[in-house]
């Protein structure tokens, strides 16, 4: 857990360094006549500082203020007006939303992540050509792919994937998510779990933990069909649980139909229910035959 937090600090301080360089542009502008831009960038500085401190309450408060202020910039989506400060405003807004996404991951709020990501996306797709590429783009896109995978929204996962160029697919952050999906589809769950050790970015850890939970449910579902019975010890290892106690709790919550007998876990019950029904489906057959008769009559 400690490592996790320091990882974030590294990320944030590094990002800060990046935006500090950029700060000069808006500063110069203040001599001119855009007080709004100055106000936003000052608030943004405070947001970044709060994010470093992990002061989430302040962060969300500042963020909602910032979002309201951003609405007034005409150069931002959906208007894309060509104002003189367009590039600065767009860059600033993109930075803010990138931080918003990181914040939502830190706060472990998936809905907020989705919202913020969708607000951020036009900055990559629609005005991507006009701005210098953000170093955060691929990590965040990869993060989004991972989120879709965790939420088992595979169709959307592939839709997003189609939007990425061949270049982007080579990026370690994206590649990580793509390979995960493949292993997941194949059923090579070990590979999914070992991938946790090779995360390309610290923010990924939260989703990887969630993914582990999804994987556990998948393994449980597969084992139920594939094995007649398993030793409790083996089952515990396969389901990645640390103690027998946890295993029993998991069974009680998720699969109450499983049975534990003398150190063996028996799945048989789950199978019986699906293998039954040998009787003739008479009503269905009658309906079908009648419909054939009706259709034939129409033809002849």
């Amino acid at each position, binding site marked *: 857990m400690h490592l996790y937090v320091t990882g974030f600090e590294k990320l944030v301080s590094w990002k800060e360094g990046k935006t500090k360089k950029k700060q000069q542009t808006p500063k110069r502008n203040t001599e001119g006549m855009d007080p709004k831009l100055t106000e936003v960038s000052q608030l943004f500085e405070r947001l970044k500082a709060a994010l470093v401190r992990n002061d989430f309450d302040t962060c969300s408060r500042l963020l909602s203020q910032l979002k309201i202020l951003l609405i007034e910039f005409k150069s931002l989506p959906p208007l894309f007006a060509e104002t003189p400060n367009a590039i600065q405003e767009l860059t600033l807004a993109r930075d803010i939303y990138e931080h918003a996404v990181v914040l939502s991951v830190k706060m472990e709020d998936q809905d907020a992540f989705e919202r913020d990501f969708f607000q951020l996306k036009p900055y990559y797709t629609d005005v991507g050509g006009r701005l210098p590429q953000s170093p955060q783009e691929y990590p965040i896109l990869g993060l989004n792919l991972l989120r879709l995978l965790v939420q088992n929204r595979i169709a959307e996962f592939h839709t997003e994937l189609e939007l990425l160029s061949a270049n982007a697919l080579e990026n370690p952050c994206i590649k990580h998510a793509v390979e995960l999906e493949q292993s997941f589809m194949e059923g090579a769950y070990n590979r999914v779990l070992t991938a946790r050790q090779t995360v390309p970015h610290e923010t990924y850890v939260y989703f990887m933990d969630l993914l582990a939970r999804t994987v556990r449910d998948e393994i449980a579902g*597969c084992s139920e069909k594939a094995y007649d019975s398993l030793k409790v010890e083996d089952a515990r290892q396969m389901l990645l649980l640390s103690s027998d106690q946890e295993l029993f709790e998991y069974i009680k919550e998720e699969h109450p139909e499983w049975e534990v007998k003398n150190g063996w876990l028996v799945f048989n019950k789950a199978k019986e229910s699906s293998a039954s029904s040998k009787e003739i489906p008479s009503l269905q057959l009658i309906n079908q035959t009648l419909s054939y008769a009706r259709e034939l009559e129409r033809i002849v």
Partner: protein
Amino acid sequence: MTQDVEMKEQQVAVAPTNSTSSTTPVLQHLKEIAALIETGAYAREVRRILRAVRLTIALRRKLKVSVISSFLSFALAPGSEAHSRLSSYLPKDDQNDMEVDTETSATQTTVKHSSELEIYCYLLVLIFLIDQKKYSEAKACSSASIARLKNLNRRTVDVLASRLYFYYSLSYELTGDLSEIRGNLLALHRVATLRHDELGQETLLNLLLRNYLHYNLYDQAEKLRSKAPRFEAHSNQQFCRYLFYLGKIRTIQLEYTDAKESLLQAARKAPVAALGFRVQCNKWAVIVRLLLGEIPERTVFMQKGMEKALRPYFELTNAVRIGDLELFKTVAEKFSTTFSSDRTNNLIVRLRHNVIRTGLRNISISYSRISLADVAKKLRLDSPNPVADAESIVSKAIRDGAIDATLDHANRWMVSKETGDIYSTNEPQQAFNSRIAFCLNMHNEAVRALRFPPNSHKEKESAEKRRERHQQEQELAKHIAEEDDDDF
């Protein structure tokens, strides 16, 4: 307004006879087409205009600058805004141009022309420019025509308009600026919907889908498609395109069964001449069928004119059929340029999983009991822990119903179950039922399609017979509709 139209009608009758003396056969043809359009516009008969468009396409290869400019002078009043604008797009290289110009202008100056003819001139010039690869002029010309169309609201213009939309989009696609016109197309689609211009809606919806898919914006494409109004297709070509785009969207969104249906239907319905389109449909259909776990028949790849284009997909199918991961990898690498230009790369990555499944199925059929280490070796899984990988892969395959087997964790082997007698289950009956349903459905579709025969045979029947036939057909259709309602 009506007076206007009548005047034109008289002029059309006279015009061809007036100017036959000095014109080439192509120009003569064009004038006949113009007459057809005028009659169509006057009588409000859309089919005449449709025919005019078809005839134009047949003339396409014979068009020359001189012919077009003299036709413009014939059809539009020289000096009028449309005339000068359209002539400005044409390259100037002919000196007898002028001759014809003056000659025709003498006879035509006083006559007003219908807007249909004006739009037709735009279309003609646009087709010519695209054929001559003058794309920037084509862009200018098409934009001008779209601007002109906005002020016209007549059903007879719709046919011409839908063709213009198509070439408008094509000219922008050829220069690679497709994203520029997306907003315009959306606006046009809205207008077409408001005017109940169904052909226009159909065409524009396809153009929009094409526009989105060009940039891989599958999400937007699907949202538009699912919300746009649908109605019975007016044009077979547009319907084929729609099916193709629909198939693509569904493939990306992993709805393989529906995708297969759309793609195969698109390939079947497409006209024989549209070879490129059918090849594309077949490529996608092959991949979708592979993803579904089906192996397409050899005849699919041997269709006339397609062998070469489908070759990479044939080898891919072969690799999947054998279930050999190594072979699959080499094929994917060997043809990677083809696959990336077809933009099927990501789909092929998805296929890896099917190759494993097929391999696994082969193993499970051949062995009644096999150790997991051997399974891993046979599947050529290269991973740090092949046995554990094989175990979880096999267990997932069992859960998904791909193979019928059980695992023994203690002994680390896989035991295939005896294949039971399938005729003791309901399986055959279900298969039989689905085939009967398919046949009956086909028959009903055919009857329904016959209800409105194309105008061609109308003249042959006497009025009485026709009435009789209509009545019969209507009854039958009503019957079918009622029965359909009953079923649900």
